[in-house]
């Protein structure tokens, strides 16, 4: 068994086939996605001529998030930095495990290989679900003693939304698209598992 794997690995590295190349490209893109934002939101209001921008990475929130948090406190919303603490903490090991799994899978035969690529297919959907969960949670746990009381709401995850004088525009960003490309390649691999 081990000898078979070793020889497969050796031959795959010497003369990589389509499956290997696809998988390694997919793994690289997934790894790269850690460095790019998955989601961006821009808030527009008259007194912010260039808009207020925040970018959500798997590990952090960057941009003018402190200003957005200051504004959010008026409607009793928690600061953005409070969102998804566990996810942010474990994002790097989880993604790196995924990178390793996708990279190693074409060397381990169809069954183990498919099993290892399957999580990558589901990953982007999971990110969306988690983002939606936190948006819903933030929009529905507004501090009732806040200066401005508004009905609980679900912020728009894609496209345009509106809160008070702000209009928002949200869209997935580079990191998400990389992970989605990984997912598509992994899906293709699941259906067309071959050596060459």
């Amino acid at each position, binding site marked *: 068994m081990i000898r078979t794997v070793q020889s497969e690995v050796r031959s795959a590295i010497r003369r990589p086939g389509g499956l290997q190349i696809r998988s390694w490209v997919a793994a690289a893109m997934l790894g790269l996605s850690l460095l790019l934002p998955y989601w961006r939101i821009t808030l527009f209001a008259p007194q912010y001529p260039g808009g207020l921008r925040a970018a959500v990475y798997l590990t952090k929130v960057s941009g*003018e998030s*402190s*200003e957005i948090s*200051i504004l959010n406190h*008026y409607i009793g919303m928690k600061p953005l930095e409070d969102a998804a603490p566990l996810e942010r903490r474990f994002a790097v090991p989880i993604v790196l495990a995924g990178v390793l799994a996708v990279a190693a899978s074409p060397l381990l035969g169809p069954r183990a290989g498919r099993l290892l690529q399957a999580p990558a297919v589901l990953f982007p959907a999971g990110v969306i679900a988690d983002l939606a969960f936190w948006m819903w949670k933030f929009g529905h746990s507004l501090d009732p003693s806040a*200066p401005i009381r508004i009905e609980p709401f679900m912020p728009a995850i894609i496209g345009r939304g509106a809160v008070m004088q702000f209009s928002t525009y949200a869209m997935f960003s580079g990191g998400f698209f990389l992970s989605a490309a990984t997912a598509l390649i992994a899906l293709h691999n699941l259906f067309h598992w071959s050596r060459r």
Partner: protein
Amino acid sequence: MRIRWIAAGAVVLMLLLLAVAGGRFGGAAATSAPDLEGLIKARGLTPDQVRAAVQTFVPPGKYDEYLMFASGGQSGQVLVFGLPSMRLLRVIGVFSPESWQGYGFSKETEEILREQATAREALTWGDTHHPAISETNAEYDGQFLFINDKANARIAVIDLRDFSTKQIVRNPNAYSNHGAVVSPNTEYILEGTQYAAPFPFKHVPLTQENYNKLYRGLATFWKFDRARGRINPAQSFQIELPPYAQDLADFGRFESDGWVYMNSFNTERAIGGTLDKKPALETGASANDVDYLHIINYKKAAELIASGKGTTVNGIKVLSLNDAVASGVLYFAPEPKSPHGNDIAPRGDYIVVGGKLDPNVTIYSHKKVMAAIKDKAFSGTDPYGVPILAFDKVVEAQVKIGLGPLHTQFDDQGNAYTSLFLDSAVAKWTLGAPYKRGAEAWKLVDKLPVQYNIGHLAAVMGDTAKPGGKYLVALNKWSVDQYSNVGPLFPQNFQLIDISGAKMKLLSNTPIGLAEPHLAQILPIDKVKSWATYPEVGTNPLTMKADPNATTIGKERVVRKGKTVEVWMTAMRSHFTPDRIQVQQGDTVILHITNIERARDAIHGFAIDRYNVNLSLEPGKFETVRFVADRAGVFPFYCTEFCSALHLEMAGYLEVAP
């Protein structure tokens, strides 16, 4: 046949109706939105005025091309304008408390006004005259601005990163001053005493004998430490001068580097005494036909001071008049009496002097001055033994330009612009070789009336090695009939002039209704790299670094130590934390406040009612306020800068228990 006529008649009738209807519609359109020509006609504007309006109009949201720093005169402040719009962009608190900026209210700015506590009392006003932008290679670098206070012989340092005053130094041996100019690389800021006074600073009865013997003028060279952004008095020095009224000065550059030219008046040493039937100071001071242009080798003076010559008087090194004369530091050249401007041409080769009471500008050649010194071409000495260079050996040219010439600025085409006080005009004239040659040289080429009594004038970088041309601002002392009346204290009148063409063109008037400015300096707006917010949260504006007492969310606290209550507070929209402070009457209260905002323009004020406290806390700024809670009561404190929708709610209480 008849039918044809009827048809033709009907057609004509319809055409007529159409014409009438069309005319009516056309007319209606014209009255609801008059076209440009209609508007110009309705406002009675001439084509030149329309051109000037278009040339100076800056549309909403667009920026000006140049910044102008103007002295704020008796307000003690500096005014910042945008050109060509001439809109006032900022006032910078310098010598007077300025409540909007909290200048003079925080511990940090109070220390500046008290000159780091060396002053006996904090003076609450100043008479700012001559702004000087810091220079590198004799060009404005836009990093610092210096300005003098004529009334109290002080110089202030303003950091242009945050447009705020960082230091005030008081001349320890002078009462008044005139002029603040910088050396080509801002090693020194030069301050001339205006009115001679007992030296050192003390009381000496004002008699002619005492005046001649014991009163002195001074040239003070303040050493600037650019890395620290402060004047270093320990490395500064003074040169003792005869008791004349030393006036405006300019540093040489390139061939004249190392030298300073400085005007003087009252070389007659008049001291007034009108009630004793003696001539008034103004009469006595203009009895002689000439005064003395001071020619100072300051590099040599600095070397002498460094080598141990000179004595320390009230904390500053002074090179004596005798030493200055003996070692070739000081020479005089005759100049038309009661001169005012003393301006060096861009290449450092010519010195232009405007003799107020003489219709000429007198141009000296630095090369000729050096040759005359070498050849000892003296026409005599003054009563203190200072050699006087022979006038005809040092003068390059005299150009007759009009009455009351004062100050001169330059453009990039070899032209000079001189203000004519008595003529109320600006004269444009040409410099000689290498700027202009042959018949083109030393000629009056244009004159533009200004309204009225022009003092200084400022052209774009017009006193540097690289003048920019394009615009010139006339700083007029009288406005007389230029503005609708707002009481007998008339606004000053700034006039923007286009100098890009052969003929000067007046573009706009700007009333200055807060003081009488003197000099201004103009530079391209992109040369000034200023901050929109303090780069680090908790930046102390004095050190420009994060302060150890700056605090952040969750770290706010109140600590009592004996009779002192210290509070570490944050400010952000729309609350101060803490918002309740309890002290006992007689406690010393120290508030360390940090504006933790990062958004530009998210400014908070901090005022305590009845305790004479108001701070301006720009995003990221840290300041301290310290006072003794000597009145019992419950005093609201609140944000004085409308920061947010809940700005009025940004408040709290200071409880002072009896």
